[in-house]
């Protein structure tokens, strides 16, 4: 019999990861709650002046998104590493970088997409205008996949380490800076009625770059970590 084709293996892996996430759904919801909680902390910390919140709201939401993304990254490879499934992925006849795309896609669907769904609620909490909220959703749609893709490289490098979680933030946050800058400034501009096409194009460019380079880097990092 012929080996499973790559698209078949991709689909089976994707479905497997989504099934696993569903069966662990109580765990999966934590980063989302974190996202909401962190955002809600700011008015409590700096005062609830609507104008102030509207001003710094985009930055707050995006920083919270970065942190929530970091929090959820551990789950990408941890379970597979612990039970030996990761070895099997490395030893499969399929190109590892393509399998990585499946894993990161599943991860984003479970941890990134929910942020988009909850974002309108947070816009209301921070008094963002409709324009700003719309731009926020677009930046999250473009930016959170980039966070997952870049983060995957960091997790792949630290998956075998005992204290991997603690240095993951150090490795990944500096790489998140461009996404944060373009996304937050896009939303702020939108609130002020200024054009945002440049920001969004740059975010889209980052997404394309991350999609083309990250899977290979993640695969290489995994091979090194697992050797």
């Amino acid at each position, binding site marked *: 019999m012929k080996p499973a084709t790559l698209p078949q293996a991709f689909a089976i892996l994707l479905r497997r990861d989504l099934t696993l996430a569903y069966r662990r759904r109580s765990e999966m919801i934590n980063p989302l709650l974190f996202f909401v909680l962190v955002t809600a902390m700011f008015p409590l910390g700096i005062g609830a002046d609507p104008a102030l919140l509207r001003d710094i709201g985009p930055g707050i939401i995006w920083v919270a998104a970065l942190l929530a993304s970091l929090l959820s990254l551990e789950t990408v490879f941890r379970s597979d590493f612990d039970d030996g499934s990761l070895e099997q992925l490395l030893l499969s006849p399929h190109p590892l970088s393509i399998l990585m795309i499946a894993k990161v896609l599943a991860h984003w669907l479970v941890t990134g997409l929910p942020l988009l769904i909850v974002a309108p609620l947070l816009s209301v909490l921070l008094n963002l205008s409709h324009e700003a909220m719309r731009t926020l959703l677009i930046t999250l749609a473009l930016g959170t996949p980039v966070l997952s893709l870049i983060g995957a490289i960091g997790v792949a490098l630290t998956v075998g380490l005992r204290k991997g979680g603690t240095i993951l933030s150090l490795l990944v946050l500096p790489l998140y800076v461009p996404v944060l800058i373009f996304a937050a*400034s896009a939303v702020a501009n939108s609130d002020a009625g200024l054009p945002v096409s440049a920001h969004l194009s740059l975010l889209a460019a980052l997404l394309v770059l991350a999609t083309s380079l990250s899977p290979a880097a993640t695969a290489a990092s995994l091979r090194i970590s697992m050797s």
Partner: protein
Amino acid sequence: MIHFFHQLASPKHFYRISGKWIPWLGLACLGFMLAGLYEGLLVAPTDYQQGDSYRIMFIHVPAAWMSLFIYVVMAGAGVIGLVWRIKLAEVMAISSAHIGASFTFLALITGSIWGKPMWGAWWVWDARLTSELILLFLYLGVIALYNAVEDRRTAARATSILALVGVVNIPIIHYSVEWWNTLHQGPTVTKFDAPSIDMRMLIPLLLMAVAFKLFYATVVLMRARVEVLQRERNTGWVHELVSKYE
């Protein structure tokens, strides 16, 4: 020539050859540094805008250049070590990391000192300082990852990938921070650039740049030799070396 490089890649020969170079590199570094400091502190004219406080730039600017240069060297050495599996390349990469981080830190401190008389604050979120800060975190990440992995070879390979990812991201980060800085312009225009370049100011700058490069060369070889000794501690030639001191 090929034979020379082939020999150099062997840890034992590297140890011997580098031992001979270090004193000369160190001496040259000292020479250039004295010349550069003399030119910079005594010969270069006082700036009509910034007075004498601008002279810290003769350390700040070359340090910033080095911080970037060393990161690129580190990433390059890492790739060579990864692709061609040359142990010495791995050693050079990790030996460079600490030096690069130190230069970055130096650039930040001197940048802060330079800024204080101008804005009265020890820190401003100037584009270049902010980029240097992020670069420092990138260096710390490489060092932290290297220390966290138990097997030395795996550690070297992992940090090579990380350095490579960093090198790709540095231009992106730099550009995004530049942009961010122009968006959030403070009330005073930050003029961190060197005052209009006078030839007499360029010379000390270049002298210090060369001095720093020689400093890097000296110290990286010193660190690399220690690293090589540690890695090769179970081999015959290291045992011979140690027994000479007993």
